[in-house]
């Protein structure tokens, strides 16, 4: 009985905070747009069975007809993938340096990684507008040292979006990799060298495979939220930056087309389920390997 109660806690949590909201959104995605409050029809006021009979997949069909949507999905996937790789390239050396740092430095370095979270995410992304704009700090600095003759256009391009995503999600990449590298026994590297590996070869054959789980966890932690990212593309990206999060926002708030917006959200969720399941499996395997 006590065991059942304990086990039920996460399930109730999942039911209340994921499954019920999802069903609500799913129901809206099957409804039609209406000039009413809420702005769709049918609702429970029409009676439960009556409401069910009026639901259809019209909005999903609409998503396949207008190429804006699948282009936005593809473009989001592309941006999320590229920025995940970039974050890994930036984050791995940082995590490696942290794990190799003297013991008394590590808490400080960890603190520095987490520190940006103490200010609002929105403010930090806005700050990048000030850095990346044509008159921004970056351009002024580059002009001043004479590297460029005229300002670079970075803001309102995909480059700015990549910079924003890498900056924002870097800690999510660093922390799991750091924790994997931190557990790595230094004598394994020495053993690899003793058996004939160069430093680089030992890194490739021992360090990378043994931090694999950290790399996978970090990549998912960046990829999953980056895919649905809305704030960064809308603040830093240009009109040509197409991301599904932005489309979703516009459907909801500019067009007030809740049913289509819900359909977009449902599809996004279905796309995300694949990496989430893979992520879960990785975590599980890691837990098994440790026992």
């Amino acid at each position, binding site marked *: 009985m006590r065991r059942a109660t304990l086990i039920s806690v996460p399930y109730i949590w999942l039911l209340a905070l994921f499954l019920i909201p999802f069903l609500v959104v799913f129901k809206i995605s099957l409804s039609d747009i209406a000039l009413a409050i809420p702005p769709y029809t049918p609702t429970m006021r029409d009676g439960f069975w009556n409401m069910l009979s009026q639901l259809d997949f019209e909005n999903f069909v609409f998503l396949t007809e207008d190429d804006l949507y699948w282009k936005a999905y593809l473009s989001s996937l592309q941006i999320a993938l590229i920025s995940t790789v970039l974050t890994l390239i930036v984050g791995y050396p940082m995590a490696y340096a942290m794990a190799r740092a003297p013991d008394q430095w590590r808490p400080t370095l960890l603190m520095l990684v987490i520190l940006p979270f103490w200010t609002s995410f929105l403010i930090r992304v806005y700050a990048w507008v000030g850095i990346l704009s044509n008159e921004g700090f970056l351009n002024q600095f580059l002009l001043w040292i004479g590297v460029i003759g005229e300002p670079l256009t970075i803001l309102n391009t995909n480059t700015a979006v990549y910079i924003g995503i890498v900056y924002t999600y870097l800690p999510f990449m660093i922390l799991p990799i750091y924790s994997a590298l931190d557990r790595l*026994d230094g*004598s*394994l590297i*020495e*053993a*690899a*060298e*003793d*058996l*004939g*590996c*160069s430093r680089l*070869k030992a890194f490739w*054959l*021992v360090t990378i*495979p*043994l931090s*694999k789980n950290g790399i996978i966890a970090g990549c998912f932690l960046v990829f999953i939220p980056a895919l649905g990212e809305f704030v960064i593309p809308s603040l830093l990206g240009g009109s040509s930056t197409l991301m599904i999060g932005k489309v979703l926002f516009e459907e909801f708030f500019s067009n007030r087309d809740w049913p289509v917006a819900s359909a977009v959200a449902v599809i996004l969720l279905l796309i995300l389920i694949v990496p989430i399941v893979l992520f879960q499996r990785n975590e599980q395997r890691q837990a098994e*390997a440790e026992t």
Partner: protein
Amino acid sequence: MAETVFAPWDVPTAEPIIRFRNVTKRFGTFVAIDDLTLDIYPQEFFALLGPSGCGKTTMMRMLAGFENPTEGFIELAGKDIAGVPANKRAVNMMFQSYALFPHLSIWDNIAFGLRRETSDKAAISARVEEMLKLTRLEKLARRKPHQISGGQRQRVALARSLAKAPKLLLLDEPLGALDAKLREATQFELMDIQEKTGTTFVIVTHDQEEAMTVASRIAVMDEGRIMQVATPDRIYEAPASVYVADFIGDVNILTGTVTATGADTYALTWKEGAAPVTAVSETTFAEGQQAHLAVRPEKVAIHTTKPDDVDNLLEGKVLDIAYLGNLSTYHVELPGGQIIKAQTANTRRLSRRSITWEDPVWVGWTKTAGVLLGA
């Protein structure tokens, strides 16, 4: 069947495989190795023995190539190895933690070093199978290190470090993680494998029993210096200093001044008013020089009645008895408060033991039983 005794260190023409020449290693201001000179010969099973922090691990790491000497040089087979990185040395190491790669199977762990030097799959496979056979691990080849026991892991580590047929194998506390029974079995296994492969082994240990069991010669170290290098029996029977005598096994030490009483024979006045003890010594001592007499407990006999014809005899009473099963160690307190340990084999049942606590007893030993040591 007369077999020639393996003792290349006594042969003046023998070429050592390793030469330490005036090697000093400093970490900042800390001197880990202090002006150390040492020769190790091919096919030796050489033990570095000492308390933790004596520099034995530093010596091993210098041989493996993880540290370089601050001063002096180390030769391996006649070549100075300073500056040769670990991955280019014909030396392999078995790590204390075994350092098995957790992401690789036993088979791949053993093949790891071989793959670095050749891409000949058949040769690698043949060598790995040979190593698996040598260490009796054939059935576990496909397992991962976390799926096997500690003793098996130890054998994998040994197989991996032997796979490349190194000139020299370094073993860093190889049996430290094993329980007593398994350790003893593994010690003999190690000696067996060493004999089969003919590889020179250098073992680092703080366990004197282990060093005595496996090694052809032992170097006793303290604070970065070698106190004595000798065969196990010499180390035990003829320690060069009080430190070595005290470090290896149990010992009684009487300190006093010596007077010569005959050729090679000295009397040691160890206490005012007490009869001096006599001892035979090969080294000569000056008249009145301070010296220590070291006598092993098993060479001290304990008597309930005063015996005749014993070179040295002291009277006291039994303070403590340590019963070890096969042996008993009696702690006999002399009138001055000094304690002499005497050990006897328990050849009779305990219930028939004639000595008990507080009994007045005599302890005695012959004049050749002890070693007279300088200050």
